[in-house]
Structures are given as C-alpha cells and as structure tokens.
C-alpha cells in the first residue's frame, strides 16, 4: 500500500478546485475530449490575457489562445508534471503569441490606428483609459502579463502564481513595479498636459 493523498482533511472543505483540475487533466490525458474542453474553458480567459499582453488585439489574442490549446492537446503526453498544466499552457501561449506578433510586425498589420480615428467623439474618461492602456502596452512584457491576469482576469496571487509558474512574492513584486511604472508615466503624462 502506498499513500496517495492526505485524506484526513475535512472532506467537505478541501481544495476542490485542484481536485477537479486533476480529474479533468487525467481524463484528458486518457483521451477524453470533453475533459480537455473543460480545461480549455477554465483557462481560456487567462490564456487570452497572456496573448493580449503581447498582441494588443482581442481577435488575435483569441486566435493565439485557441492555437495554444491545439498545441497543448497535440503534445499533452509530453506534459511531465500534471499540476504544472497552467504554466505549461502559458508557455505555449507565449510562444504562439510571439510568433503571431512577429508575423504581424512583418506584415505591418498594426491595428492601433483605429484608436485615433475619432478622438473627439470619446468622453474624457475614455480618453484617459486610452492613455492608461497605452502606458500598459509599453510596460515590460512580464509586467503586462501580471497586470492583465490581475486586473482583467481578476485572478488571485495564488492563481497568477500557478499560471505563470512563479512565487506569489514574485507576483506581488511584479505588480508593485508595474503599478509604480504606470503611476510614473501617468504623472509624466499629466505634467505634459499641464505644461501645454
């Protein structure tokens, strides 16, 4: 007999999320299509956020996420640590997104022009959000990822840590640095506006 898990914990209060993820992953590893799809459903928005932080285009980000799922599905037998599924998927998504970003740069498909087409029709708030978005898009990649996971996906530090494969302290550090940079840039932006 070999122990498999601590079963002396409260049976009604255990970490069921991890439990169900393990179930789904094992089922997917055993060839169950529905379970793989349910894993995709769980990770979809986080993976889209990772992709968006590189591509700054929602449609492209969704394409990248779906492509990443396909690669994950194809290579799932290579996954050595099932509890690292999230971070493994993230790595795949980063690679896919980077490739797409390269192609986009090469084809000069930079879809930012639309933003400035009708500046006068936007409210002050919308314009301000645009400024913040622009600042975020210029942050280092690692900071952008953590910003999107935290503020778009509303993930906890623990969840971000699982997705990115870094410690919660590192998540906290990246977030703090990212916020400082945003504040700094916002300050600069405001001072320019005042000067004008």
């Amino acid at each position, binding site marked *: 007999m070999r122990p498999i898990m601590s079963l002396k914990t409260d049976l009604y209060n255990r970490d069921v999320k991890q439990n169900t993820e393990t179930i789904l992953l094992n*089922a997917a590893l055993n060839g169950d299509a529905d379970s793989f799809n349910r894993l995709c459903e769980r990770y979809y928005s986080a993976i889209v956020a990772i992709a968006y932080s590189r591509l700054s285009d929602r449609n492209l980000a969704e394409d990248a996420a779906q492509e990443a799922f396909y690669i994950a599905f194809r290579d799932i037998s290579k996954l050595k640590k099932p509890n690292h599924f999230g971070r493994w998927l993230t790595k795949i998504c980063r690679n896919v997104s980077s490739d797409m970003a390269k192609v986009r740069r090469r084809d000069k498909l930079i879809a930012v022009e639309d933003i400035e087409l009708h500046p006068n029709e936007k409210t002050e708030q919308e314009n301000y959000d645009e400024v913040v978005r622009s600042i975020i898009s210029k942050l280092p990649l690692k900071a952008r990822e953590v*910003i999107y996971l935290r503020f*778009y996906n509303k993930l906890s530090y623990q969840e971000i840590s699982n997705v990115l494969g870094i410690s919660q302290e590192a998540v906290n550090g990246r977030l703090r640095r990212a916020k400082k940079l945003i504040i700094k840039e916002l300050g600069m932006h405001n001072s320019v506006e005042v000067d004008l």
Partner: protein
Amino acid sequence: MKNKKDEKWLDETISRAVDIGEVKFDPKKWREKYLPNESHYVKLKPHYNIWRFIMESKVTKYSAAAVVALAITLVLLSPFGTPGNGGVVLADVQQKVAGIETMIIRGTKTFTRPGEDGDIFEFDGIKCQFDLVKYLSIKHGLVEEGYVGDKLIYRITFNHPKKKTLVVLPPWKKYVTSASTDKQMQLLENLTPKGIINLLMAGDCKELGPDSINGVEVEVFEFQDPVTFKELASKVFFDVQNIKGKVWIGIKEQMPVRVEGDFVIGKCLMSMFHDLNLREVNTFGEYNVELDEEIFDIKPPEGYTELTLSDILSLIPAEAKAGLVGLGVSSCIIPAGFIVWKRHRKKKTTANRH
C-alpha cells in the same frame, strides 16, 4: 502611492483600461477548426492509471429525489453487465486483478436530457455535469463525490461493514441515510476490478478484436445484458430497458483500461416518468492505494438536516405525482412516507393538547 484611496483609484483605473470584454471558449468551434476528426482524441498517451467514470444520462428535471436516487443508483449500477469469455486475455486478467483491494476513481458524470442535442439536465440552477472522485475499498466500501466546478454537490457513502448508506447534499445542507440491501452490497463488491472481470467471465460477450487506445494495445469486448440491473429494483422504481457496453483490456497490462456503457431507461420513479439514456465511460485507475477508514464514515456532517419525503414531494410537480399513482408506486412508496409524516403530526398534535 500615498494611501489606500490612491491605490484603489489606480486599481480601478487599470481595471478599466485592461477590460477587453468577456471572452468565452467555444468547444464546438474549436474542435471544428482544429480537430475535424475526433478520432485524434484516442491517440493521447495515458499518463496515469486512473479509472474514471463519465456518465451521461438523460433524466427528469423535476425532482431532487431523482438526482439523489439516480446518483445512488449509478454508483451501484456500473455498466459491467454479464458478458463473458471472449478473448484469451480474460483469464489472465482475472488472476491479475484478484489481489486488488482499493482503487481511486476519477472522472466525470453528466446527466443529459433526451434528444439528439443531449442538453445537460439542470436542477436548482446546478448543471448536472459532475466531476467525480470515487474511493473503493473491499474492506470499507465505496464513496462517490460529485462536484460541479469547485462545488461539492453530493457525497454518497456505502459503508461495507455497517451495511449502511449515507447521501450528503452540501448545497442543500441535507443528508439521507438508509440500510444497504444485500443486492446493493453484492453489486458494490462487483465494482472492484476483480468483480468486473468476474462478471465478464460469467456471461457471453462479443469480442470485437484488437485496438489501440491512448497508445495502449487492447482487446475490445462488447456486451449487452440488462438482466443484472433489472434484479436490483422493481421496474416501477428503476426501469433499465437496455444496456450496451464495451470493455477495453490492455493486452500487455492484463488490466481493464476502459469501460463504456449506454443505458436506455424507461419511465419510472427514478426518471420521474421520463424516458432517459445514460452513458458511462471508465478508464484506468490507481490501485491498492491507502484509504483511511474515515473516508467511509457514515456520520452526517454538522449542521446538516435529514432530507424528508416532504422535501422531495414539494419539488415534484402534480404531473409527476399523478404518474406515481398511475404506476402504482403510491401503494408502496408514498403511503409509507405519509404514514410516517401523519404519525409525526399526530404525535405533535397530541403533545400540543397536553
């Protein structure tokens, strides 16, 4: 940042800026785009040896009783009918699995409504598509836990030594206890790999030949036999009309790798007078793991109250109650419940008079 107010303002500002709208994964479109041929799925390499059940059934939407009763029944009724002696591997398999004492099963169980679309049955806002964990022990019994997302929806415990059953429904803070019948205990014993293979050896089945599943070379058997299940309960209570199933046995491993079963169930109390279909798929599991006796404890959790007949009846619409009478169930089930209820009321009334 000077204070919490500033931090809150910044968080809100960032949240607004990064809001790209809700995104939702569409499995159907994804499959159409990337996996037009679904047979790809069976080429995945197995990672763990884990038994898993995926049960898809089409059931009534009317009653919690149906959910509970079906859950109990599905634990007891695995689709291991009585096919038999089709291939050369079975005898070896029987010997190989004889020493297995415990098993952990993981998987999913889905209840769907009849029809080609197979809509997932919903009850009380809960989609009955369960992630499962089952603990099987020859010594202690069987536990099945059903989760929806991260939420435990039910936990069914069959305590073997005590011959008792406990059903716990955390979303409703309810529980049900009952004595397990000999037939149930017998079927429980058959849920072990040994029992499964014994059942396979006992009857007839059709050998479909060699196949490969998840990269494992297997021998496939097909079986069809509802007799075993008809014996479990009366037709009025649970009307299994047909069962078809397949078993994959790893040639090298000499162990069951996967089991699938399809049930056709007629109008009965269990289905709240609806025709339904049920599909179950099992794949490999972990054997001889250490399972605490505590897991099989049949003490209801603190703060839970017993599920009564009135709880159930209040959820059954008039149409279904009429069905109960029409099928003669009223003579065996409803009065029994009402008698208890009326006696209870009478006692109360008498007590009040004093």
